[in-house]
C-alpha cells in the first residue's frame, strides 16, 4: 500500500512537470497554430533565471583560505553574508522562491519578443517550416546559455527548511516508512495552482473567452472585429511564463544544464498528442497520467515481468491511444483539423 502511494505521489510530481510544459505547448499550438519546438528551451530559460538569481545573490569576496598550505587557495564569502550576516544567508537560501518573482516579467518579455520578432512571420507557413525555425531557435538559446553558464549542471538547492522529507505516513496515520520530499510536494502543489490559474483565466475572463473562441474558430472571431492576433501575442507570453515557472521550480529537483529543455520537450509532445491536440484539459490529464504510469513502470515487480518497460511506457501508451482514439484522450472532432 505504501509503495503504491509513493509511486502515485512520484507520478504526480513528474506529471506536474509534464503537464505544465504540455499546457504551454498546447496553448501555443491551439491559439497561434504554431508547433513550437522551442518550448523546452523556454523551460530551460526559466531554470536559468533561478541560476542567475542565485549567482547574483552569491556574488562573493575572495578570502585566502589559511587552512591550505600547499598552494594559495581562496574561500568565497558572499557579500550579502558579509553585510547582513544571517539575514544575508537567509536571502541566499531563498534564491529559488525569489526567482519566481524575477522570472515572471523576464519570461513574459522573452515570450513577447520571440513572438513579435520571429514567430509571427511564420503563422502562414507550413508546420514543417515552423518546426524548423523553432527548433533552430531552441538550439540558439541552448548555445547562448551554454556559453554563459557552461555545459555542466548547476546545483540550485531548495531552502533548507524544505530540503528534507515530510513524514506523510505518520501524518495520515499510515506507515512511518511513508515519507516524501517536501520540495516535490511543493512542486506538485505549485503545478496545481498554476494549472488552475491558467484555466480560471481562460474560463472566467473576457480575454480568456476570446482566446478560447479563437482556438475553436479563429476566422469567425476575426470577422466579429476582434483583434485576435494581439491577444494571441499575450497568450504566447503567458505560455512562456508557464514554461519558465515550471523550469524555476524544477531546479532543486534536478540541477539544470543547457540541455534540460530538450529532455522534456519530446515527452511533452507525446503528452500533447496523447491528451489531444489543442485540448488544454487533455494536456493536463495526459501529463499526470503518463507521469503516474512511468512511475509504476519503474517498480521492480513490473520490471521483472517486462524488463525495460520504464524506458518505453510513455511511447507505448501513445501508440495505443493513437490507435484507439486517433484524436487523443480529449481531442474533439473538428478542433485543430483542416
Amino acid at each position, binding site marked *: 500500500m505504501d509503495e503504491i502511494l509513493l*509511486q502515485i505521489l512520484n507520478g504526480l510530481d513528474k506529471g506536474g512537470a509534464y503537464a505544465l510544459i504540455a499546457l504551454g505547448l498546447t496553448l501555443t499550438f491551439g491559439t497561434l497554430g504554431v508547433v513550437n519546438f522551442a518550448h523546452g528551451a523556454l523551460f530551460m530559460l526559466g531554470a536559468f533565471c533561478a541560476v542567475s538569481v542565485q549567482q547574483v545573490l552569491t556574488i562573493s569576496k575572495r578570502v585566502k583560505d589559511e587552512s591550505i598550505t600547499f598552494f594559495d587557495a581562496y574561500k568565497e564569502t558572499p557579500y550579502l553574508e558579509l553585510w547582513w550576516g544571517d539575514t544575508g544567508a537567509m536571502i541566499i537560501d531563498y534564491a529559488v522562491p525569489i526567482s519566481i518573482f524575477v522570472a515572471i516579467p523576464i519570461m513574459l518579455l522573452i515570450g513577447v519578443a520571440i513572438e513579435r520578432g520571429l514567430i509571427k512571420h511564420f503563422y502562414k507557413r507550413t508546420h514543417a517550416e515552423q518546426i524548423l525555425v523553432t527548433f533552430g531557435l531552441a538550439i540558439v538559446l541552448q548555445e547562448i546559455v551554454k556559453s554563459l553558464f557552461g555545459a*555542466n549542471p548547476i546545483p540550485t538547492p531548495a531552502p533548507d527548511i524544505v*530540503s*528534507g522529507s515530510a513524514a506523510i505516513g505518520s501524518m495520515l496515520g499510515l506507515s512511518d516508512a511513508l515519507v516524501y520530499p517536501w520540495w516535490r510536494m511543493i512542486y506538485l502543489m505549485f503545478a496545481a495552482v498554476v494549472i488552475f490559474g491558467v484555466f480560471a483565466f481562460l474560463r472566467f475572463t473576457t480575454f480568456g473567452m476570446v482566446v478560447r473562441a479563437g482556438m475553436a474558430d479563429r476566422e469567425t472571431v476575426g470577422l466579429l472585429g476582434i483583434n485576435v492576433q494581439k491577444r494571441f501575442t499575450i497568450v504566447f507570453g503567458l505560455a512562456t511564463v508557464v514554461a519558465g515557472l515550471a523550469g524555476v521550480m524544477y531546479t532543486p529537483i534536478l540541477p539544470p544544464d543547457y540541455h534540460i529543455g530538450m529532455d522534456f520537450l519530446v515527452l511533452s509532445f507525446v503528452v500533447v498528442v496523447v491528451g489531444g491536440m489543442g485540448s488544454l484539459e487533455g494536456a493536463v490529464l495526459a501529463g499526470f497520467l503518463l507521469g503516474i504510469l512511468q512511475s509504476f513502470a519503474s517498480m521492480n515487480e513490473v520490471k521483472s515481468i517486462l524488463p525495460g518497460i520504464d524506458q518505453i511506457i510513455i511511447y507505448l501508451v501513445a501508440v495505443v491511444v493513437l490507435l484507439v482514439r486517433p484524436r487523443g484522450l480529449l481531442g474533439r472532432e473538428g478542433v485543430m483539423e483542416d
Partner: protein
Amino acid sequence: MSDDSKFSTLSRRGFLKASMAAAAAGAAPTFFINNANAYVNAPTGGTVTLGFNVPQTGAYADEGADELRAYKLAVKHLNGEGDGGMMNTMKPLSLKGNGVLGKKVAYVTGDTQTKSDAARASAKRMIEKDGALMITGGSSSGVAIAVQGLCQDAGVIFMAGLTHSNDTTGKDRRKHGFRHFFNTEMSGAALAPILEKEFGKDRTAYHLTADYTWGWSQEGSIKKYTEALGWQTKAAVRTPLGAGDFSQYITPVLNSGADVLVLNHYGKDMVNSLTQAVQFGLRDKQVNGKDFQIVVPLFSRLMAQGAGENIKGIYGSTNWNWSLTDEGSKAFVKSFGAEYGFPPSQAAHTCYVQTLLYANACEMAGTFNPCGVIEALEGFKFEGMGNGPTEYRAEDHQCFKDVLVVRGNQNPTSQFDLLEVVNVTPRSAVEYAPDMLGGQLGSCNA
C-alpha cells in the same frame, strides 16, 4: 597493328587497375596503411603530438575538465616548464625535462561526450588528422573500452584515464591499452572488510546500478564480496546513464526491507542519486532494527563537492586522494594547486601519471614505436607517483598498488577536505590472478 592494339588495351587496363588501387588506398582509413614509416604517426619534426580525449559534456564532464587540466600540466612538466611536479619524485625516471626523446610535446583535445561513438570519432580524428601518437582519456569505461579497441586497430598506444570496469583490463584487454586506475574487483576486495567492521555481517543490500559496463562490473564485484560476508542482496536495479531524476528508482527502496543502499553511480549521476536518496529520508531511516546506510563504492572528491553535506559519513573507495602525504602526492598537489587554485581529483591524478608513464616508457625504449613502448611498460615497477610501489602487470596491463578506502569527512578542515582516508588496503589484499577476469591481450599492431 595488332601488337599496337594489344599494347594499347593492356595499357588502358593497367591504368584502370592503378586508378582503382589509388582510389581504394585513398578511401581507406589512413591508419590501416603501413607507409614508409615503421609505425603510425611517427614524429618527423621537432614535436610529438598526444591526443587527450575526455568528456567535456555529459554526466562525467566535471571529471573530464579536471583530467584535461592534469594533461596540460603534465605537458608543461614534460617540456621542462613549471616546477616539474612528480618528475621530481618518480623512480626510476628516464625523463630529462626536455620533452620526449628530445621532441617538444604538443597536444590535441577531443570531447567524448561520455558516448562511445563520439569518443571513437574524436580519437579517430586525432589519429588520422592531427597525427596523435598516443591517445589517453576517460572517464567512462564504455568509452575507454571502445577507444582502446580503436587504438589497437590503429596501431597507437591507449593510456586509459579514469575507467573502473573490470573489463578494461579483463575481457576487453588489448596489447595497446594500459590502465593505471584501479578496478571494481579491487574496490570490492578493499571495501568488504571495512563494511563488515562498520555495519556487520547481517545486512540486506539494494543496488542501483548505472546500466553499462562499469555499473554491471561494480555491482558484480560488490555483490561478490558483500555476499561472501553474509550480506543478502534484495534487488539490483539498472538505471539509465544520465537519468537525472532517480526518484522513481529510489521510492521502491523505502519499503523493500533493505537496510543498505549501494549506489553504483558515478559523476553527476551519483551526485543526483545520493542527493535524492537523502531527500527521501533514507539516511534517517531505521530498518531491521539498524540504521539505514548508503555506500558509494567509487568515490571522488569532485562528486563529494557536488553532493555537499549528503556525503558525510558515507563509505567508498578511491584510487588516490589529494590529502595523502607521500612526496609524490605532495609534489603533484602543490604543482596543480599553484596552477589552478584547487587540489586535483583522482581523475586528474591518474591522467597526469599516465602521461608521465607513457613519456618515460618512450625514453626507456629509445623510440616512439608502440611495440617498443609496450615492452617498456610491461612489468614496469615504479614509485613516487602517489600510490606507493606500483607495477604495470605484463599479463593484463593493469597497475597493481594499494587501494584507499575513504569516508565522507564529518569535520572538514577546509573546503577541499571532503574525504577522509580510513584504510590503505595493501596491494596483496586486492591482487588477483591475471586470467581471473578473462580476455587476451593479442599482439602489437605497429
